């Protein structure tokens, strides 16, 4: 893979649009051409050369290109938007909408990612090695459709509404997830190794959520099915035992919650409702 190294000269004072920084846009261009590409900083058209130093070499095909970006990119938004192939590595923290509507390729963030990671994505992989913000794997407003495919991995914690309206693909979180994890979920799998906030799986109609840590409560619109010794996430066996709930019943839903029995003794009273 050809490597193209971009280094942010200084953290921008106003938001910078990062959607130009994809292998799809940079492949097949010379360094000079890349430096002359334009993007937005606030309402100003600026050349990439104003924002970044660039070294390395581009590839002829997006799938052969690895873009490595260094610096404080917390005000860079839509990085990797609509990318279809290749790889982006960010060494630093990045702003909102990483991998917006991406269809393929890989984005690695060696730092934190702000809200809306992988919004509307349908394929590819996003790996965040720090924490991620709110609404990871959700969808554009009003679409009633979140992430449709692909994989999002977050090593640290995530914010609220993880996988909101999610329809397919997998999200794995190494740390904790805040409230409304899997809200309005319609398919796919969410795995949280840590704790989750309240309202887990609210209004979900399908899909699967596995939580190894603590769950403050289970919504009244879920019914308990059984206790299972283990379960699977994308073929990987996960040891339990787990309480299995289904719901959201008010939505006629058949989503499944797999909740660690060991970490949630306060749910014991629900066992009485197992047939």
């Amino acid at each position, binding site marked *: 893979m050809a490597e193209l190294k971009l280094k942010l000269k200084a953290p921008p004072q106003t938001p910078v649009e990062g959607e130009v920084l994809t292998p799809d846009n940079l492949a097949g261009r010379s360094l000079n051409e890349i430096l002359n590409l334009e993007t937005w900083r606030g309402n100003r058209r600026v050349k990439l050369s104003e924002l970044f130093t660039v070294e390395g070499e581009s590839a002829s095909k997006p799938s052969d290109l690895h873009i490595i970006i260094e610096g404080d990119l917390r005000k860079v938004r839509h990085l990797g938007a609509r990318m279809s192939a290749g790889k982006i590595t960010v060494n630093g923290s990045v702003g909102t909408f990483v991998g917006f509507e991406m269809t393929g390729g890989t984005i690695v963030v060696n730092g934190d990612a702000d*809200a*809306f990671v992988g919004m509307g994505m349908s394929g590819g992989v996003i790996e965040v090695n720090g924490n991620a*913000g*709110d*609404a990871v794997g*959700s969808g554009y407003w009003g679409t009633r459709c979140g992430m449709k495919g692909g994989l999002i991995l977050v090593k640290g914690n995530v*914010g*609220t*509404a993880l996988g909101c309206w999610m329809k397919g693909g997998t999200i794995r979180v190494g740390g904790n997830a*805040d*409230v409304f994890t899997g809200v309005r979920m319609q398919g796919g799998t969410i795995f949280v190794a840590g704790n989750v906030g309240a309202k887990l799986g609210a209004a979900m109609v399908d899909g699967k959520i596995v939580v190894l840590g603590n769950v403050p409560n289970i919504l009244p619109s879920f019914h308990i099915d059984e206790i299972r010794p283990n379960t699977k996430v994308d073929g990987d066996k996960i040891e339990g035992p787990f309480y299995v709930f289904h719901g959201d019943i008010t939505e006629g839903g058949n989503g499944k919650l797999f909740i660690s029995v060991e970490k949630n003794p306060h749910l014991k009273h629900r066992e009485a409702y197992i047939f």
Partner: protein
Amino acid sequence: MAKFTLLTGRSLTQGVGKEEGKFSERYIQEVSTCQIDPEDLKILNLKPGECVRLTTEYGSVVLRVAASTLVHRGCVFVPYGPYSNILIGTKTGGTGMPNFKGIPVEVEPAPGEAVPDIKELLVKTYGRVQ
């Protein structure tokens, strides 16, 4: 020190006072007073009119306390305004809206302290004011 839940909201006096002016006595008095259930006040060993320090993960401020049976036990109500804002965070959960209600708050009597003057509070918090 006791753990409470902070609720902020509108009150009629705040609404009326607002129309008189944001520096009117009525408005400032109202928005720098928190309301707590009388039973909770007893437990805290506070009398109406005394000062209390509220602290959340976002900030801390001293307010006057008033007794109100309309507030749930374990809750403290502060009308919207420059004082309550000190206690509110900017996390919007991806919605644009911070949590103004239902925030964990620590309440402790502040006998030696006074409610800060509005202008002092502003200068201290934000730097500039006329």
